[in-house]
């Protein structure tokens, strides 16, 4: 049984790895804590003197094990932050130059995709609009202008490990670069009304030549 759906981007695979790193940190913490839980339960019937049992923990020295535990967790926390931050920077805080640009617009209850027309530029008169079908070339940097017309939606590409809320009145530009061809899902991850659960699109990741043919077909229509 797999844990994640297949990953179709470099960044996505790094995010999966991060999940396991965090799980490992948490796993170590779990083992230690579980021991502290179970040991006193198992040994509860042993004889102890009152002096032994009257543990108040009213000085730093007596609490040293607690401090050690907190410091260990602090180190684990820092390790997580150290590992995650570069990924966040590359996903959200940098915008590599685009090979191709599209706009994806959520509305109740579908995704409008705007492709640049034959002039290759977005937001000109020859732009072409499609519904729920996103064709992108593999191994290219694609910029997505994300927006919404009516209520908040959220562009969720599970296999690309990508998510960004789509807001009315605002354009948010994010990028993806996918490394596997195939048909994948576009989900809406923010409740947007009665039709929220039918709001699905398909993302087609195609090799460059197929994709060019697809685009040519779209232009013809």
């Amino acid at each position: 049984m797999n844990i994640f759906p297949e990953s179709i981007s470099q960044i996505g695979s790094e995010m999966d790895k991060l999940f396991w790193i965090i799980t490992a940190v948490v796993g170590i913490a779990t083992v230690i804590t579980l021991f502290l839980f179970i040991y006193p339960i198992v040994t509860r019937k042993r004889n102890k003197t009152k002096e032994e049992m009257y543990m108040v923990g009213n000085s730093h020295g007596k609490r040293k094990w607690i401090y050690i535990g907190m410091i260990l967790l602090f180190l684990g926390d820092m390790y997580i932050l150290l590992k995650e931050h570069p990924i966040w920077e590359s996903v959200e805080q940098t915008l590599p130059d685009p090979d191709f640009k599209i706009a994806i617009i959520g509305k109740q209850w579908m995704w409008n995709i705007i492709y640049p027309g034959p002039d290759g530029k977005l937001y000109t008169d020859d732009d072409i609009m499609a519904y729920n079908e996103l064709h992108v070339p593999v191994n290219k940097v694609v910029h997505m202008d994300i927006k919404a017309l009516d209520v908040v939606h959220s562009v969720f590409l599970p296999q690309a490990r990508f998510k960004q809320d789509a807001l009315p009145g605002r354009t948010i530009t994010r990028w993806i670069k996918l490394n596997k061809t195939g048909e994948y899902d576009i989900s809406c991850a923010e409740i947007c009304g009665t039709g929220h659960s039918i709001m699905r699109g398909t993302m087609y990741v195609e090799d460059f030549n197929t994709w060019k043919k697809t685009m040519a077909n779209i232009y013809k229509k």
Partner: protein
Amino acid sequence: MDTHKKHGFWHRYFFSLDHKDIGFQYLLTAMFMAAFGGFFVYVFRYNLAFGPNDIPLYGDLAAKQYNQLVTNHGAIMIFWVGMPILLAVIGNFLIPIMIGTDDMAFPTLNKISYWVFLLSCFVLLAGFMMPTGAFGGGWTMYPPLSVSDFGYNNPNTTFWTNFFTGNTFFLLAVALEFISMLMGGINFVVTTLNKRAKGMSLMRLPLVVWMVNIANLLFMFSVGPLIAGAFMLLMDILVGTGFFDAYRGGDPILWQHLFWFFGHPEVYVLLLPSIGAVGEIISTFSRKPLFGYKMVILMVIIAAILSLVVWAHHQFVSGIDPGAANIFSLLTIIISIPFAGMVLSYLGTLWKGNIRFETPMLWALGMLATFTFFGGFTGLHLGSNVFDIYAHDTYFVIAHFHYTLFPTVFLGGFAAFYYWFPKFSGRMMNKTLGLIHFWGTFIFFNSIFIPLFWLGLQGQHRRIYNYSAWNDLLMQPEHIMARQIATVSLIFLLLFQFVFLFNFFYSIKKGKKASKNPWEANTLEWQTDSPPPHGNFDPYPVVQRWPYDYNHPEKELDYCPQSEI
């Protein structure tokens, strides 16, 4: 002079100003609301596993109703079950008897707070009878969805048609509930500060009293912005002001900030009283002092303050500045440290204890374990802004927050219930039934939510009526099976609650008589009769020591009541 004469049913349940009676009224009302919250989750989970048709006890479920049930399930469980039980019931019943006084500082205000609370329940449920149906936009009420059919957006509406909608009633119900909890909260804080028995210094207060007070203060600090936001949202709905309408100079994200500035501390408001009660129970049944009492209080205060500055971890992908998201990620992950201090103190209390497995102790340990291992630790996953890109609004989040809230509200709530039941009823609960109830609840709670973690990692997003559009991704046999395991477990979990109901009503009438101090505990409530008379104590106790002198080397017995020299 007979001030202790028996009052009739009407007096006790409708007009009594006694804090114990009011606590009991809150308890019954919250149980009544929990029946709705539980029934709703049964209906929509049944639909997720076995389809929308012919749901037993309900019938067919449409997408719109699915959203309404999810929304109201969430809101009810938090505002109408969690808050009343953990703040109002624990606060009302315990504060006066634990600090050694006769009643609240403002008994009448206390009564009003209950009446307002009751009204808020009816207003919420009345939402289901509105022409538009109950509100179904998620308990977080994100605009523009929560206003999109009304006001400016729909020229066919008037003020009154906008008023009689599920949306308006939902907002009003939440507002009334807040008013009630604020009145209650003020009362708790003033009572604790002013009415303590002689000798009851702040550092001799039982932990749970500290926790209820910190929780109430935190609620007061955080709720202001939400009230402002709720007023703007109400105006957007009623008269179309457009505070959250991007096309008219408003901003939908503003609501999200105001909501979560309150919403994150809110989960700590629920957590603290529960973890406080669990601390009392662990100390009592380990026969050991609460380890690091002062440090626990300090850690909780630090966590409470930090909880005011982590709210945007709910908004990592909502369109806030990605640079700011880093700070929220850091602060969120750091909040694990004070909690680690607290959990380790509790484990230090268990260490070398003569642990007694009474029913309340099982619930308390179950609470601490599930909260820490699944709730707390998956919080680190979600606190990482990177992983949250993927996990946000999936069932991974659903499973995470249920692993914090369910232990808090139900496991901790039942721990407290079984522990203090002898005191408020004068009778013991049946232990065998209590154990059956515990194991049924504990096992099935885990088997509901562990599959949901996995479904979340598979990319199953939340608030979805059915997944048939995601045939490859989410409709494979293993997904369907995971959903069915969760739903069948839920049905069993609900059935086991009838064991509790039976035990409750049976024991309250016919249970074995309880002595003053059946658990051999130290705090003041155990020094008076079970149940305490009107006025609680006769004579009033003088406090000599802190509450955790279990196995004190200079004492003969393994416990030593606070009022003993």
